[in-house]
């Protein structure tokens, strides 16, 4: 066959079809069938009538919202201070904030667990608090990085123009810097919110994972209930889709994309 550049894409297109599209089709199929391969809505109605499943959904939403808020509250000032500072070795210092991302999360959570055990004694006493602390600790760099990138790319002349036109520091921040850093905030929120809803292993390690969506899949998986598990996965996927549309899509380079 004659060589053509477009044909290079064929293997990847096939790969995507087999390992991305096909699994989702199978997921959809399993979600709406029962063990005998017959079409059923039972999995769907089962999920939405099971108080346990619904409770898990709301609990994991709550954890995700609080974790995202805490991350944002810490990350925004951090990113702002970093981006507006005149530090000489700014890239090095920013790197310090991003570096934990490259240490295996399970090892970092192990470390955190040791500290929390000292502070709290019995970790089972504060499950919600520990969930938020653990996830904040794990995801914080993912929130700092996109916000930092957005603010440091802001044209300094815009801030100067606002001051030139009579806005003091506070108003310049509220009317110029904050609205213009919104894309970074959104990207950071999507980097934190979605994992916070599904990353049950962080909570697992901190002795509390029963009430989070991801672990629900895990429990069906452990019980070889593919159909129920598929339905949970599908519900999650739908929520992810809605969320992604709301935040205007994830920043493509944000995930682990520091300096790379």
């Amino acid at each position, binding site marked *: 066959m004659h060589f053509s550049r477009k044909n290079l894409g064929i293997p990847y297109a096939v790969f995507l079809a087999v390992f991305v599209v096909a699994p989702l089709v199978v997921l959809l199929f399993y979600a709406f069938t029962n063990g005998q391969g017959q079409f059923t809505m039972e999995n769907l109605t089962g999920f939405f009538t099971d108080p346990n499943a619904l409770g898990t959904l709301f609990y994991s939403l709550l954890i995700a919202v609080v974790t995202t808020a805490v991350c944002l509250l810490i990350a925004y000032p951090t990113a702002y201070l970093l981006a507006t500072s*005149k530090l*000489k070795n700014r890239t090095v210092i920013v790197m310090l904030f991003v570096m934990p991302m490259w240490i295996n999360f399970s090892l970092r959570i192990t470390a955190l667990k040791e500290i929390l055990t000292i502070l709290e004694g019995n970790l089972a006493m504060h499950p919600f608090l520990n969930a938020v602390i653990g996830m904040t600790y794990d995801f914080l760099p993912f929130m700092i990085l996109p916000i930092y990138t957005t603010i440091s790319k802001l*044209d300094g*002349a*815009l801030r*100067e*123009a*606002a*001051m*030139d*036109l*009579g*806005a*003091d520091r506070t*108003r*310049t921040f509220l*009317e*110029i810097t904050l*609205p*213009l850093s919104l894309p970074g905030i959104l990207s950071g929120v999507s980097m934190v919110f979605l994992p916070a809803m599904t990353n049950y292993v962080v909570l697992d390690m901190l002795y509390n994972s029963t009430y989070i969506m991801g672990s629900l899949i895990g429990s069906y998986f452990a019980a070889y209930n593919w159909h129920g598990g598929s339905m949970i996965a599908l519900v999650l996927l739908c929520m992810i889709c809605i969320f992604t549309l709301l935040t205007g899509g994830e920043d493509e380079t944000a995930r682990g994309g520091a300096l790379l």
Partner: protein
Amino acid sequence: MDRTENIIELKNITKIFDDDGFTAVDNFNLEVKRGEFVTFLGPSGCGKTTTLRMIAGFDVPTSGDILLNGKSIIGLPPYKRPINTVFQRYALFPHMNIYNNIAFGLRQKKTPEEEIRRRVRKVLDLVDLEGFEGRSVSTLSGGQQQRIAIARALINEPEILLLDEPLGALDLKMRKEMQLELKAMHDKLGITFIYVTHDQEEALTMSDKIVVMNEGKTQQIGTPEDIYNEPATAFVADFIGESNIFSGVMTGKLRARFCGGEFLCVDDFPEGTHITAVVRPEDVEIVPAGTGIISGVVDSVIFKGMHYEITVLSGRNEMVIQTVNSARPGDRVGLRVDPENIHIIQAEDHTNSFPVDINSAHRLEYNGHTLDTSLTRIIKGSKRLENGSILDANGEVIDPARIRIQASIQPEDIEMTDDQDAGLVQGTISNLIYLGDHYSYVIHTELEQDFVVYDEDLWNMDDRVSLLMPVEKMTFTLRKK
């Protein structure tokens, strides 16, 4: 309006940046009258934008004071100064529409919305963009963004409008149009404009007063005519318009020696004064060989539409001439200049500088003598290869034809000798003057260059001497062609 009152005064302003210790502005003084159109003109990095930023309040001077209407504003943050800026790349707020951009300043002052609406309409009318209120910034062309930036500043009725290279991003045609419009706006509104540009033509067209700056220092302050016709320094002469610039010496009352000849002039300096002579290309006349003040050979002729640009080499000197009559390369011609067209400036120092060559072995050479110095020392970061060629800091081979090396040496470092073969170059003493404890000589060399030499001993006029110039006393500067 009182046009004699100073609206803003800059007193001994110096700005040294903390991070790298760079002196951006050095003891800058300026008085601006109410309603004036003042332009800061200079090459990039000359301190003009920094000065503007200090007036706006974005940068704080290291020392010195800025007075607005006689009162110091040094401690005032930008948002409390009745001064507005049109930024280089406009700095329009991308998340606001045109109306909100323009209204921004008035909103900060809590102006009633009704009045804001009226004034936005008025100012949009002024910049010829009626009805643009609802448009977003990204839908505008560069020229339109420019007008919005001006409108956004003007609506606040500032006492001074600062414009930082506002036309830099526009194409030539648009730039010419905006120049005229800005000038008309200035005349109509009566607001004081302080304008920053590196474009000399823009400065000459628009300004009441031009401040020429270089390396953080004021070179000259004056009207466009003054700056063009009577440049105060060699830098100004070089920067404004095209000029032939020569260093020379006064050889008598209204007589100056430069470019290998003795010219009559109208600027009166004492005999022996070291001078810089400026001759505009359009003021040089080509006359038959032998009848001019100096003679030379036509090196190149370029047709420029309105005129020919002719380069004549007279020994090692180069004279650029603009004339409507063509010439042929290789022709021997004479050159003359009317005395009133020669502008003489007292030289800042008496350094002799002269071009040196790079020979085929990549060594420096002057008048056939190899100079015992290393090219790699002159070109930072360069390396010499086995075959003698030189690599620059980026590892690229340096083409000797692309660079020019200028050597400089102080008059006291040159020694004269009778031994004709001992020195680097030979010449005759064409001028001498006693300066109290030493004589200052001008030696006219075979290469048609004049060297200034200090010597304690008395030599005679027209003595033939050879010049001893130690390489270790020379400094070399690199220029790209």
